[in-house]
C-alpha cells in the first residue's frame, strides 16, 4: 500500500521528491507539502520514508496481512550511521531492529567500465558474470561460510 504524508510534520524540503524511484512524490501547489501523486504506482520501497528528515512519511500496510493498528516505522540516523526499525503488531507485540547504514555516497562507487580491460574470449565463454569471482570472493580462498568467519548459527530468530 502506498505512502502518505503527515502534513504537520512535512516542511516541504524535497528529499522524498528527489529520491522517489517512481517519481510520484511531489510538492503540493497549495500547501507546499509533499504528497504521493499516484498511490497506485507506489511499490513501498521505503526510500522516501527513510530519506525524510522529519519522519513525515508513513506507509499503509495491506489490510489482509497488516491490518489496522499495526505500525512499521524507521529512523535513519546519519550521525550515528544506523538505521532503526520499530515494528508494532496489532496484538501489541513489538520488534526493534538496529543496523548500520550501508548506502554509499551519491555518485561514488559506480563501476568505471571504460577503465576496465575488455574481456578476452575465455571470459566471454565463461559462465561467470562481470567481476564475479572477485565480487563473490571465491578468489580469496573458498566460499565464505559462518564457520570460516568464526560464527555459529543459533536456534531461533535473533538480532
Amino acid at each position: 500500500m502506498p505512502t502518505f504524508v503527515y502534513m504537520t510534520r512535512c516542511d516541504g524540503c524535497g528529499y522524498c521528491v528527489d529520491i522517489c524511484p517512481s517519481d510520484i512524490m511531489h510538492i503540493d501547489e497549495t500547501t507546499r507539502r509533499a504528497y504521493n501523486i499516484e498511490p497506485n504506482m507506489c511499490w513501498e520501497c521505503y526510500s522516501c520514508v527513510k530519506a525524510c528528515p522529519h519522519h513525515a512519511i508513513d506507509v499503509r500496510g495491506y489490510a489482509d496481512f497488516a491490518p489496522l493498528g499495526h505500525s512499521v516505522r524507521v529512523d535513519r540516523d546519519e550521525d550515528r550511521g544506523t538505521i532503526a526499525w520499530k515494528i508494532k503488531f496489532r496484538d501489541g507485540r513489538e520488534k526493534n531492529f538496529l543496523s548500520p547504514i550501508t548506502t554509499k555516497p551519491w555518485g561514488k562507487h559506480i563501476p568505471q567500465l571504460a577503465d576496465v580491460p575488455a574481456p578476452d574470449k575465455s571470459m566471454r565463454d565463461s559462465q561467470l558474470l562481470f567481476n564475479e569471482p572477485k565480487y563473490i570472493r571465491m578468489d580469496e580462498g573458498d566460499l565464505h561460510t559462518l564457520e570460516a568467519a568464526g560464527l555459529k548459527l543459533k536456534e531461533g530468530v535473533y538480532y
Partner: protein
Amino acid sequence: MITSNPFAELAAFIPPAAMQAYVVLMVILVAVGTILDMMHKRSAQYFFENAKKAEKNATRSVSGGEKFSQAMQTLGKEVITSGEFKNPKRRASHLFTMWGFIVFVVSSAVLIFGYATEPAAGVWPILWHLGALSLAFGGYWFWFFIRVDVYSEGRRWYQLVRADMFIGSLLATSTFAILWSLTQGTGALGWLFFALFLAATTTLFATVYWSKFAHMFFKPAAAYQKRITRADGSAENLPTLTRDDPEQQQRHSMELLRDAPMEMGKGIQREAPHHY
C-alpha cells in the same frame, strides 16, 4: 533616510486615527482568518486526537515540571531559533524572514500608535527598515534558491501557485515598504509604492484562511507535542533504539560499527535534493 519615521510624513495626508484603524482591522483579519483556517482544516481537533492517541501508547508518565521544561525547550529551540529545520540554509533563511517580520510588524505598530506624527522616533524607524530588509533578504533567498519547486519540481521562479501567496505577499510587503520609504516625498512614484505596499499588506493579512500564515500559531504547538511524545516513550511509534546505548552496540547486527566513531561525519550525510 532609515532614521526617519515613514509614517510621520504620511500623517500629513492620512490622519493617524485612520492608520491605527487599519492596523486594528488587520489584527482582526488575522484572528478571524486563523480561526476559520483552524475550523476548516480541523487542525486543533487533529492535534488533540493525536495527543490522546500518544498518551495511550505512552510507556511512562510525564510530570508537570517536565512538561514545563519541554515547553521552555520548544520555545528556545523550535520557536526562537527555527530549530526544526534540518537544512541549515533553510533555517538561516527562515530566521531572517521570521525575525525580520516580527521586528517589522512590532515597529510598524509602535510607530503608528506611538509616534505617528514624529519624524524622529528613536530607534524604531531604524528597526522598521532593518526588519523590512531582513524580511526581504530571507524571503528572496528562499524564493530564488531554497524553494523546493525551483530545484525539485522544475518550476521557474516567476511561475506562481497558491502556495506562493504567503511568501509572495511577504516579499511584496517588505520590498514595497523599503521602496516607499526611499521614494517618499518624490511625488507620484512615492505614492505608487505606498499604494502597492498597502495592497501587499492587505493581501498578507486578509488571506490567512488561504495562505500558510497560521503556521506561526500551530507550529510551536506541534513541536511541543512532538517533544512530549518523545519524553513519554510513545515517540509516534518511531524507533527509539540508538547506538548510544552500550547494550545495543553489542547486537550482532551492529558488528560492523563496533569500533566506529559515534559521529559518522559528513561522508554519510544525505545530500541536498538536487538530482531531480
